[in-house]
């Protein structure tokens, strides 16, 4: 078992270290995200000023915003850029030749990319929004702690599942790019992920009639479910239901990715010179 897992662990480690090296880009990203966060928080505060009684409180919606900025790197907006390039140059043939399971390899790469990109950003974001903001007297706008110890523990499980869900979806996008031979095949991702995960507005603030659908569609597991668990809006049975939805979609994305990739690999033809 341990020797079997070695190549995947090696790629995971190598990718993670690579991601940590983009420090300048990370700093630019950090400043941009703080800026966005502040704008969003002010807009939310203005909306809540007239109608404070909503499915989630203003403090929760603000924490949601900061979590969203800190964990932005987890979102699967695109296929793996290197796979996309390999498809366009024809180098995808090498992927086919490697003596490892391609789906697991791509999955490991995606996990490392998402986790590495996020690990760099979450800490400074947390310091800025959870520590500095209260210190300069903007406690109302700050990132709050998890509701309870239980909420924190469930959040840890749920955000890990979000990482797996995002990575499984990236692999699905990789397969789509390989099958259709253009990186544009992954363009659909942002259109789906942004609104359905809760990045545009927290899903709890969407119209009431849409709530059932929004909870059970796959992308809620990327953002909305873990965040609501964090501030205790989903607790007890509801939290477990949310985690069950995440597990379900990770499993379905994995199965779909494996099945589709097997089909693509069986009759792949490559382009390029």
């Amino acid at each position: 078992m341990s020797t079997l897992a070695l190549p995947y662990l090696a790629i995971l480690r190598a990718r993670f270290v690579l991601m940590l090296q983009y420090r300048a880009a990370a700093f630019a990203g950090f400043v941009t995200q703080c800026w966005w966060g502040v704008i969003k928080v002010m807009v939310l505060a203005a909306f809540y000023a007239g109608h404070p009684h909503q499915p989630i409180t203003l403090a929760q919606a603000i924490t949601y915003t900061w979590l969203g900025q800190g964990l932005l790197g987890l979102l699967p907006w695109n296929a793996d850029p290197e796979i996309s390039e390999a498809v366009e140059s024809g180098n995808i043939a090498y992927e086919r030749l490697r003596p490892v399971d391609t789906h697991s390899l791509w999955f490991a790469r995606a996990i490392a990319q998402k986790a590495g990109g996020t690990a760099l950003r979450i800490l400074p974001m947390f310091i800025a929004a959870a520590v500095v903001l209260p210190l300069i007297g903007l406690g109302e706008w700050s990132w709050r702690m998890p509701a309870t110890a239980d909420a924190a523990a469930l959040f840890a499980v749920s955000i890990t599942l979000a990482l797996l869900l995002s990575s499984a979806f990236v692999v699905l996008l990789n397969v789509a790019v390989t099958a259709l031979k253009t990186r544009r095949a992954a363009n659909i991702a942002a259109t789906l992920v942004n609104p359905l995960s809760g990045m545009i507005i927290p899903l709890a603030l969407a119209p009431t009639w849409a709530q059932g659908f929004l909870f059970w569609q796959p992308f809620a597991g990327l953002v909305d479910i873990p965040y609501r668990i964090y501030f205790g809006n989903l607790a007890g049975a509801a939290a477990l239901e949310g985690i069950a939805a995440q597990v379900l979609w990770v499993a379905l994305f994995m199965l779909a990715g494996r099945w589709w990739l097997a089909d693509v690999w069986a009759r792949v033809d490559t382009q390029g010179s």
Partner: protein
Amino acid sequence: MGEFALILRYVRNCLRAQMLYPTAFMIRLVTQFTVTIVEFGGLWALFARFGHVRGWTFPEIALFYGVVSTAFSLVDMSTRGFDMFGPQFVKTGDFDRVLLRPRPATTQLVGFEFGFTSIGRLAQGLVAVVVAIALLDIDWTAAKVALLLWSVAGGAALFAGILILQATLAFWTVESLEIVNAITYGGVEAAQYPLDIYASWFRKFLIYVVPLGCVVYFPVAAVLGRSDMTGMGAWFGTVSPLAGFAFLALAFFAWGRGIGHYTSTGS
């Protein structure tokens, strides 16, 4: 050939090149429209739940949103050369060649590439304006239409100024400063709401530093007949978009200094 005819020729060439892959072109265009219109949908959803934001209604906000989005898309379409100036021209030393040609550098940079896919965002901005006009009960006069267009023009001048400043900074930093995106995209996000919902330091930033408030907030509030909210008379909305052109003039001045400072980086 005049500068304008030259730019038209650039446009035609670029369109021909992009249309070599018509499907890819359409996919990008439709994607950009969908992504931005979905954001507009998010705005609608917030109003469906909250009703209003500090007394402003959805159609009113839609007009702010439409104006700023339209202005930005027009600039985004024609300033790719400035956006990519650091990595594409300074880092490679290609700017030397631009300077050698007997044409203004700005003309050549505008002609570098046209982002026709920004038509997707333009369409979204126009949809927002149409939704606003359809839902609002405004007594349209020629003066109001002119004021709205004047606001779009001021906004476009301001965004162009921001992008030229970004390119100017690349003379010193070589790399493209992506932080500027916080001001362009962040500005579109911020200016879609009336300034009076923001904290006062942010409001001042949007009036005195990056005068998005001057080009969008005051004139659109005047069109909406809500100048009372701004703390200034309606007349102010007719002159405030000039701030966008002043910003653009400053940006051109800095750009000139940047060119003077440029000593080539090529190998």
